[in-house]
């Protein structure tokens, strides 16, 4: 008997803007002892689904049934659900820093679960908590019970979270993006831990993630969600190997690791639909490359002999990589003079700790780096390695505490105020967070035009024309000149950021994690845009990312950073083919690329039936 049998779950959440249809007619089964993956982009309803099932979204209206060990979770009272939570179903959330209470020691937070569901002595509870902490790989567990969440690193915190979910040895764990907030090498460790716990304790894991590469390497069965619809469901091997839905196919193909560096990425055009609207036909039709007339009617569920089920009228044609002409970006000839030359760069922050004590934090410990005119130099490393600090120093936003930065022949540290302004004109940054880095109270036209205005390069009608030209260049509709940033999606906002940075025709563009806040299908659009612009405008750029596959796709040379130093600097292909440093190898091993989908050979359709509840 499956551990979970969900049938026709529909979730509606009333909000001020109207009813959000977070899930429509979702059915799935989770076998005991397996790892079940729920994948989807943001807004697909994957988190809402499990939170609603667990009764954590009191405002949600939920229909259908969800049998857990034979009992319907959706028919339970809050009290019955509460008895189940923590004891029979554990939960692990995305961000272990914000998901642990900052004011209680981790020992207290773990024993609280035990005391809530069992009557045991304090010592017994502490002993069990320490045992579990040891199991998840926390050393010196008994002493660390008294530590607070902020005293642990990100990965350790997630281990604590997992220990908390497992301490009563529940048969099921819901893990909501358990590795998303972590660095790749830590991600791999946490994934290993989850797998090991699943084997040792026989726990069934339902894991939610947007990371198809990761999922393809661990899941037994997967469900692909899109705008609350289950577009595809089946064994991981067939869903990832021979996707039966064009959306799954598109998602897989838009991962930068799949395409070669000279190929344009396959992106899914457009953006996910609003969950407020009720679709007439196939929910994915507006973005589907294989859309036909019949897609205006509700698609059937097609079941295949290999266990895959897809919500589609067709069996999709196999698609290769992007058919677009590859954009030829030529790496600069060897011997070209560097635009930026960094020598023995140091950066030390003075940070205050509690009660006014100060200590020094060395962020950059002696870096030598040349950015050659016309190249795209990748800077890759995990959080805290100093890559963003380096970018800020090169852009002249923060003065370094030691060493030289030479920009096109001038020493940056000797510059006077006026010369600083000129330098800023020549170096521009595209920031990571397209939501936080645009002033919500200024119109898009004025955001993009601001650099031109500040440097006195254009005004009046000329300014407006130039801004419109820039908007067109990055693929925005120039008529949206007077809109505010909140009227744009994440991908469009990042286009705004790029247009703003391009306004001054800078000699050097710094991209600081430009796509890490975006969904994979949108990420591909932005990466393609950046590549086009680089070739068209012959940009010199410094491209910062934690994601090796992205950097490989975008860059001529790659510098690997670790703990304030550049440990390896090579041609992009050489680093992948032949990494010299142990750390680089670890990074490479930890990054998962989903398999390139192949054409299904003898796929046998066994049924095609209308979806329940479809109009």
């Amino acid at each position, binding site marked *: 008997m499956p551990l979970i049998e969900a049938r026709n779950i529909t979730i509606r959440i009333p909000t001020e803007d109207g009813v959000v249809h977070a899930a429509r007619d979702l059915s799935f089964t989770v076998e005991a002892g397996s790892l079940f993956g729920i994948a989807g982009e943001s807004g697909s309803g994957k988190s809402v689904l499990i939170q609603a099932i667990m009764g954590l979204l009191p405002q949600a209206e939920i229909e259908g049934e969800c049998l857990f060990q034979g009992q319907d979770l959706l028919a339970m009272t809050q009290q019955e659900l509460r008895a189940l939570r923590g004891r029979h179903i554990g939960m692990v959330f995305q961000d272990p820093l914000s998901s642990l209470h900052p004011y*209680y020691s981790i020992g207290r937070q773990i024993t609280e679960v035990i005391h809530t569901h069992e009557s045991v002595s304090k010592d017994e509870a502490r002993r069990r908590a320490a045992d579990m902490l040891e199991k998840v790989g926390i050393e010196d567990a008994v002493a660390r019970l008294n530590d607070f969440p902020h005293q642990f690193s990100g990965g350790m915190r997630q281990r604590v979270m997992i220990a908390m979910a497992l301490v009563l040895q529940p048969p099921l764990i819901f893990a909501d993006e358990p590795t998303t907030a972590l660095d790749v090498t830590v991600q791999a460790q946490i994934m290993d831990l989850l797998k090991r716990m699943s084997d040792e304790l026989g726990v069934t894991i339902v894991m939610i993630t947007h990371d198809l590469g990761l999922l393809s390497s661990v899941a037994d069965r997967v469900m692909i969600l899109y705008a609350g619809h289950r577009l595809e469901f089946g064994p991981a091997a067939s869903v990832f190997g021979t996707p039966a839905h064009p959306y799954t196919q598109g998602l897989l193909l838009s991962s930068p690791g799949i395409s070669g560096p000279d190929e344009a990425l396959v992106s899914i055009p457009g953006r996910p639909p609003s969950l407020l609207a009720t679709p007439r036909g196939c929910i994915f039709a507006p973005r589907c490359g294989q859309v036909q007339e019949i897609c205006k009617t509700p698609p059937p569920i097609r079941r295949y002999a290999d266990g895959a089920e897809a919500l589609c009228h067709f069996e999709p044609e196999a698609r290769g990589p992007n058919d677009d002409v590859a954009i030829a970006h030529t790496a600069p000839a060897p011997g070209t003079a560097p635009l930026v030359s960094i020598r023995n760069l140091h950066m030390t922050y003075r940070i205050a700790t509690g*009660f006014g*004590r100060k200590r020094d934090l060395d962020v950059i410990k002696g870096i030598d780096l040349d950015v050659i005119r016309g190249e795209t130099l990748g800077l890759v490393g995990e959080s805290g390695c100093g890559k963003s600090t380096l970018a800020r120093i090169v852009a002249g936003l923060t003065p370094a505490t030691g060493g030289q930065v030479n920009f096109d022949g001038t020493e940056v540290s000797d510059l006077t105020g006026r010369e600083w302004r000129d330098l800023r004109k020549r170096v521009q940054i595209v920031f990571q967070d397209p939501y936080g880095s645009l002033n919500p109270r200024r119109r898009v036209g004025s955001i993009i035009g601001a650099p031109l205005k500040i440097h006195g390069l254009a005004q009046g009608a000329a300014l407006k024309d130039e801004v419109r030209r820039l908007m067109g260049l990055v693929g925005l509709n120039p008529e949206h000149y007077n809109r505010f940033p909140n009227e744009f999606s994440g991908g469009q906002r990042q286009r705004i950021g790029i247009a703003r940075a391009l306004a001054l025709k800078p000699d050097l563009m710094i991209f600081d994690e430009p796509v890490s806040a975006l969904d994979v299908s949108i990420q591909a659009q932005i990466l393609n845009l950046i590549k086009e612009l680089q070739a068209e405008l012959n940009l010199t750029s410094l491209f910062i990312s934690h994601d090796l596959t992205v950097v490989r796709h975008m860059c001529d040379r790659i510098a690997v950073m670790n703990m304030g130093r550049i440990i390896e600097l090579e041609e992009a292909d050489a680093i992948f083919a032949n990494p010299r440093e142990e750390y680089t190898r670890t990074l490479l091993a930890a990054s998962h690329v989903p398999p390139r989908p192949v054409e299904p050979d003898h796929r046998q359709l066994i049924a095609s039936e209308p979806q329940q509840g479809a109009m």
Partner: protein
Amino acid sequence: MIVFIAKRLTFGLFVLITLSLFVFFLFFVAPGDPARVVAGDKAPEAQLQQVRENLGLDRPMPEQYLRFVTRAAQGDLGFSYRNRQPVTDLIVRRIPVTVSLVFGGVLFWLSLGVPIGIISARNPGTWKDRLGQVFILLGLSFPTFVLGMLALYTLYFLPRTAGFTLFPPGGYAPLLDNPLKWAWHLALPWATLALVVAAIYARLTRGQLLQVLGEDYIRTARAKGLTERRVVYRHGMRATLTPLVTQLGADIAVLLGGVIVIEQVYGLQGVGALAVQAVQNQDRPIIIGVVMLGGLFIVTTNLIVDLLYAALDPRVR
């Protein structure tokens, strides 16, 4: 920790010195002749001169200031211009009244404001929340003296005309003489103070708790199977305490320096009333004394709040 306290004490001292310099200078340049205040309007010039010499007012300002600071450091704030009593005695005598008023008020306003805030935050958008909001709006918009007069009218004057005494019209009975009488006399002032201030705490609690209840760790607490009560009080309120303590520290510090309006309405001879009289009489030593006392309270409460912060928030330690 000790270094931190030492640093903060030094800083506090610096604040007090700056404050004293400021007040002193303000009076030095202010119009009006202190000698005339002391000797009376009709005193002849010779007598005025005598007074100036006695009080050291003929000395240059730096010298006067130094003398003031050395004496103040020993607890001597000089003498009242009006009745020649030592300022320190005058103030010390009035501190119990103000302290009783403030700390009683604190208890009342916390036990009124915080629960209202919690109820509002747990039921946002419902009638309970709306009722709470109305309370907050009334509390914030009613002037203290109107509320005080209203309380006096309904709870003292009306019963009195009907022939019985519910509450006294004001005055103060020392706590150590008769605690019951003390509380009875202070009940109306406490209630008035509480009604005015509780609104601020209801609003603060509501806002903070609402925000905290949306945090990820609250979802974690629910996912652990805790009862909603425990989620709200153990996990939610625990994180709401810090801003409450900050606000409380600031409020107590300011009020200890004199609860001017309420002391006036209820005829309480507290620090606030003393300050008002001193200003009317141009009695400079008392004014300076009261200002310095207020400064001292603010500096010490700030230190206490910071220490409490460290006790409450492990991340600060």
